[in-house]
């Protein structure tokens, strides 16, 4: 089974008509999370976590925010459908969310100076070093966001793979699932 076919099969099984609540949860939680990222990603340039940061949102950031928001909830839904939350996959999903937030959280805030100060750095050291570390996140901000998106996409793929390997009644793409885990393909073979 190709990776795309595997994801399609997992989605078909996880979001079959009898599991419509999963779709509702996916949208109800994915949309606000995507909105949080639509504000957080340009907040690095705007300087504040505010709705006004949306004015600086680029198309690439909008796509990344949608993937991070809905992809995360999709991964959680697939992980739940595949046997439950709390196993492998979640650290990857959460890691992706945090990696994408790193530039906004660490670049131009007081976090890095606060960490250096907590480590005992004096004012002259802070003035020489805080920019060295903070500018790293500014310089590679796009890579951090891309890395976060990649981790979330990977977690969706892993959850799909886990679900399809664990599921013996998953329908193939294009095969309509029926109640009781029987597909219309099974139905035809029975006759």
């Amino acid at each position, binding site marked *: 089974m190709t990776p795309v076919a595997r994801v399609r099969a997992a989605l078909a099984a996880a979001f079959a008509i009898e599991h419509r609540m999963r779709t509702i949860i996916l949208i109800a939680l994915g949309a606000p999370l995507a909105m949080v990222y639509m504000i*957080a990603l340009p907040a690095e340039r*705007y300087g504040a976590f505010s709705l006004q940061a949306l004015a600086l949102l680029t198309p690439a950031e909008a796509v990344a925010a949608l993937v991070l928001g809905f992809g995360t909830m999709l991964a959680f839904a697939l992980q739940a459908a595949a046997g439950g939350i*709390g196993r492998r996959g979640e650290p990857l999903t959460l890691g992706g969310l945090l990696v994408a937030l790193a530039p906004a959280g660490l670049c131009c805030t*007081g*976090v890095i100076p606060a960490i250096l100060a907590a480590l005992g750095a004096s*004012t*002259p050291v802070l003035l020489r070093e805080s920019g060295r570390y903070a500018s790293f996140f500014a310089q590679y901000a796009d890579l951090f966001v891309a890395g976060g998106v990649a981790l979330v996409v990977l977690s969706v793929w892993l959850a799909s793979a886990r679900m399809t390997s664990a599921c013996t009644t998953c329908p193939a793409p294009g095969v309509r699932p029926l109640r009781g885990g029987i597909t219309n393909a099974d139905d035809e073979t029975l006759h």
Partner: protein
Amino acid sequence: MIALPHGRRIALAAMIAALLAVATAVPAIRMHAPRAVAAASPAIAIGRPAPPFAYRLLSGGVLHASALRGRPYLLWAVATWCPSCVTGSALLARHIAEIERAHAAVVELELYDDLGGSGPPLESVRRGVGAAAFARDWYWGILTEDQTAVLDPTGTMDIYYVVDARGRIVAQGMAPAAHWESIAPLLGIRHR
């Protein structure tokens, strides 16, 4: 409905709580930073006089803080690699006409050695902002190490102070362009 065992429901709730905590931590830390600066450098707290520095300007001259007495001004310490500083400059440019009408001023100063980060020269940031950045009342300069240590002892970038016409600090914070609505009245700008 997703049926999860009790322990896993708790795990999921904990993960969502962790995410919300991260999402709220960033603005909270931003709000905390100016207070940390005030704690590290009590001489530059709100209500105190602005330090009587002479700032080295990009134009080659020197701006004495005393020369600004009688006018409110925004004293802003930036790093040129800092995205919110660069974007903030472009956003502030939209308000320079009203700043001039109010006889206020902006003093934008690069932190000493860009706090150790590697950014472009401040002059290229200024040129990137456009013609508004060359307005008469927008001063661009570079802080010495001693001045940086007083204005920004915690090594945080994008720090600002609002100084009133009597030379006293009346507000401080981070990212002035994002807080323009609260800064404008302090500079004597009335909203239409």
